[in-house]
Every structure is written in structure tokens, then in C-alpha cells.
């Protein structure tokens, strides 16, 4: 199956073993620093950190590339939008578009920044199982519980949604195959025809999903799930020395990136 955008790649690298919370904090801090800094040199420092982390993760380049490819459109669009409309002394004009060195430079900078952001973010999602990620987020969001934000329940909802994405994809595939076996054609015709062709697929998929949601809710109640109760965990999150090293290294990278 084609990996969705930066889908988790099972592994046992140093990066995989880091605690989800530490990774999330490090990536968030790097992302913020990335947007505060506006020089190519700073960008290079953050990019280098991202590349090192990616190489350490041991995720095959093909897996990363297939996940990254759809985002190239976004990068390309960003570049175009900036290069065509950025102010500056034009060296070439065409109709309402003016190309300037400053605009070109700015566009290149913005697109590169986006690439680095995706790279850093991908290392997080490629090496952290979605469940660990939501658990980590729930932990980080705990102070919000004082404000009566149901963080654990929200985390559970996200966990369940993530858990069922692969299941739904398998079911979607089965239904599409079955309707193709009955002569359905999903690949041709205009947008309206294509949208109509999806009715025989989406109707059963929704019916199935509602039925499953209903059964899941019953099963959870039968196993004594009640919202608002703090649960213990089978696999508690454990931060270790490696995570402290990660945070110190991240701080060092940020300082370096801001100063160069």
C-alpha cells in the first residue's frame, strides 16, 4: 500500500526508541525556530539537523520519497506565488508578472523552509507510532485539564480515528473492487461523472462505519469505559537519558541556527 503522508515506518532505530513527548517537543521547537529565523544559513543548520535525524531513523528513501512526493505540489505553488508577485526591482517583466532577484531569492527561501519543515515533521511521524504520538500529546496537554478541557477523551478520539483509517482503507478497497466487478468505472469521465461513480462506494462505506462505531461504543461500555476516569496504561511513556540528550541537542541546534 502507498504510504499516506509521512506514515509510520516500523523500526528500531535510535530515533524510533526516543520518547514521543521528547520528539514532539523537539520538533515543535525546531519548527518555531525555523519560522523565526530568516536567513539561508539558519535554514542550512536546521536542514542539517533534520537530515541527520532522518538518516539515523533508517527509513528507506523510497518510503520517504513516496510520502513526500504529493507535497511537492505545495512547495511548487509556494515558489510560484512568491516569485510572481514578490516586490523588488524586476529584471524581467511579462504582463502583470515581474521577476526580480529579490523575489526569486525570497521564493526560494520560503519553499526551502517548507521542505525543511516537512522533513523535520516527517521524522517525527515516520518514527513514532500514531498511538504513542497521541498518548504523548495527551500527556503534554494535561495542564489543560485544569481548564476542564477533556484532554484524555480527545486523545482517545484521535487514537480511535487513527486506528480505523487502515481498516476503512481496506474496506474501501474491497467495496471498490466489488463494484468494479459489477462494471463500475472510477477512472474516467468528468468530475461530475466521477463523483457520481463514488455513490455505490461511499454509501456502503458510511453504513459500515456507522455500524462499526455503534458496535465499538457498545463494546467499550461493556468493558466499563467511562469518560472522565483516569486510566492507567499498559505501556507507560518512559523518558530516559536519550531523550534528555535529544532536548539538549535540539536546544544547541536552535541556538546555532539563530546565531549563524
Amino acid at each position, binding site marked *: *500500500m502507498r504510504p499516506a503522508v509521512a506514515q509510520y515506518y516500523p523500526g528500531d532505530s535510535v530515533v524510533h526508541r526516543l520518547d514521543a513527548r521528547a520528539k514532539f517537543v523537539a520538533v515543535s521547537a525546531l519548527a518555531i525556530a525555523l519560522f523565526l529565523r530568516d536567513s539561508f544559513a539558519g535554514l542550512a543548520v536546521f536542514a542539517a539537523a533534520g537530515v541527520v535525524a532522518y538518516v539515523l531513523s533508517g527509513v528507506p528513501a523510497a518510503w520517504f520519497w513516496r510520502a513526500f512526493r504529493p507535497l511537492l505540489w505545495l512547495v511548487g505553488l509556494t515558489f510560484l506565488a512568491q516569485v510572481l508577485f514578490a516586490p523588488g526591482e524586476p529584471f524581467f517583466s511579462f504582463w502583470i508578472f515581474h521577476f526580480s532577484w529579490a523575489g526569486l531569492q525570497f521564493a526560494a527561501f520560503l519553499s526551502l523552509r517548507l521542505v525543511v519543515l516537512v522533513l523535520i515533521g516527517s521524522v517525527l511521524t515516520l518514527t513514532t507510532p500514531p498511538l504513542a504520538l497521541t498518548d504523548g500529546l495527551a500527556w503534554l496537554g494535561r495542564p489543560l485539564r485544569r481548564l476542564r478541557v477533556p484532554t484524555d477523551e480527545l486523545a482517545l478520539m484521535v487514537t480511535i480515528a487513527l486506528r480505523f483509517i487502515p481498516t476503512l482503507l481496506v474496506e474501501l478497497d474491497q467495496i471498490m473492487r466489488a463494484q468494479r466487478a459489477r462494471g463500475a468505472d472510477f477512472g474516467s469521465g468528468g468530475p461530475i461523472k466521477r463523483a457520481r461513480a463514488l455513490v455505490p462506494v461511499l*454509501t456502503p462505506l458510511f453504513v459500515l462505519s456507522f455500524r462499526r462505531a455503534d458496535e465499538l461504543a457498545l463494546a467499550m461500555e461493556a468493558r466499563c469505559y467511562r469518560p472522565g476516569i483516569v486510566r492507567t496504561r499498559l505501556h507507560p511513556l518512559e523518558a530516559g537519558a536519550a531523550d534528555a540528550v535529544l532536548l539538549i541537542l535540539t536546544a544547541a541546534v536552535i541556538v546555532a541556527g539563530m546565531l549563524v
Partner: protein
Amino acid sequence: MTDTTHGMTLACRGVSFSYEEARAPIPALRDVGFELGAGRSLALLGASGSGKSTLLQVVKGLDAPEAGEVLLDGSGSADAGYAELRRQVGLVFQTPELQLFAASAREDVAFGPRRLGWPEADVSAAVDEALELVGLPPEQFGGRHPYALSGGEQRRLALAGVLAMRPRLLLLDEPFVSLDPATRRELSRILSRLRAGGVTLVLATHDVDLAWALCDELLVLDAGRVAAAGPWDVGEAGRELLAASRLREPFLVELWRRLGRDPATAPRTTAAAAEALR
């Protein structure tokens, strides 16, 4: 309109297929070969995960084999008219009732024939015929909402959706799963009627008794390879082979063996057995 009185011949030659996964492709079929004559019926047996569903989907053409070829009426995918032959292959998925979508039983059954581009009068006739065949008379069930039917009725409606396209080769993936005994009997009657009508049948199932009652030949898959193909072997070797695939021999074969009779003469139905034992 296609000729429904003559079944299609099916042959697989060296068919291999793997599913792509993150780390390495998972082989599902390895060098599968067999032949099935027109109007014959084949029981496709094997443990879960042995490749039965994959084989059916490759035969229908939903997946292209990596190696080897599927011959329909002797034609391969490179021959002219293969697309038309492939349209005459009907595939009933496992739990096909999960794929019902239209607002009425009639509309759902008409989906396939309409995709074939038949004139509306032919579509209507095919729908009536198919609903009648599966025991859901159109005047009574045609206007009902598919989701308002019982589980067994939904299964039969989904079967009608495939039969309405007048397949000459019908592939069924575990059609008896999670049906109550009455519906199983009903479904097995429908299948034997189709068989009598000359349609070539391939029946993937874990139910050896129904396979014994309905099928002339068997094909046992084990981890994607053909473990046995041809007429039923009711001897010791055949019994061991089925046991290796986590199956048992058909009840009537066992009964005949325990009665000290030649298992090769075991009857196919309980009615025939009762007649022989009277």
C-alpha cells in the same frame, strides 16, 4: 445478449501474484495451474490465507497476475474479445451484502446490467429473472430498501446483482459464511440450479459438505501453491491432504467409509444417501 446456456472454460497457467507491503512483497499465489471444463463446478479449498480470494480476483481480472495467464474459453489477455469474456465472469465477494448501495432492491440489481450498456428493456428482464432465481420475487421485493431486508435476503440480493449480468463463469467467495441453516439450504439450491443451467462454477469455501454436494472437482491451495487438483480423492491420501489444510473429509464420504462401503461411491446428497441405505 450473451448465451447463458453454455458455461465458460477456465484455465490458469503458472499464475503468480504478490501483495506489495512496506518491507517485502507477500506472495499470495505461486505457479497456480488448473483447468476447468465448461459447465463444470470446482470447489476451491484451503486454509484461511491460502490464496483462495486472491485467485478469484485474479481470474476476474481485478488484479493482473505477475506471471502466468488466465485463459477464458481458451483466450488469453492478449487476444481480441478478452475484455468481453472477462465481463462474462461474475464474482460474488465475501459478505457481498456489505456492498449494497441503491435505494431499492431493483435498482441495486440493475447496477451491473446498466454498466454493460444493455437496453433498459433487457436490463429490466434480467433484473426480474435474477430476483426470481434467488427467491426474491420482484413484485414483492423489488421496491424494498436493501437495508430493510434480513441478512439472508441481503446475501441473496447481492447474488442477484451478479446473476443479472448473466455470467457464464461464476466465482463465489465463501458464499455460505454466517448464514442460518435455512438460507444455506436455499443458497445451495440456487447454486445447483445454476449448475444445472450450465454455468461454470468456482466455489471457494471451508464447507466441505456443501462443496461435496455442489462440485465435480476440487482445487486445494496451500500457502498459494496447488496442493491438489482434479476429481475428489476420497482415499486415505485425499483425507490427509484435507487435514493438512485444516479441513475434514465430507460427512457422506466418512459415513460410507465407516459403513464399510467404497467411499468412491458415496452419494452427494443426504437424500441420495437415504435412498441408498433404505
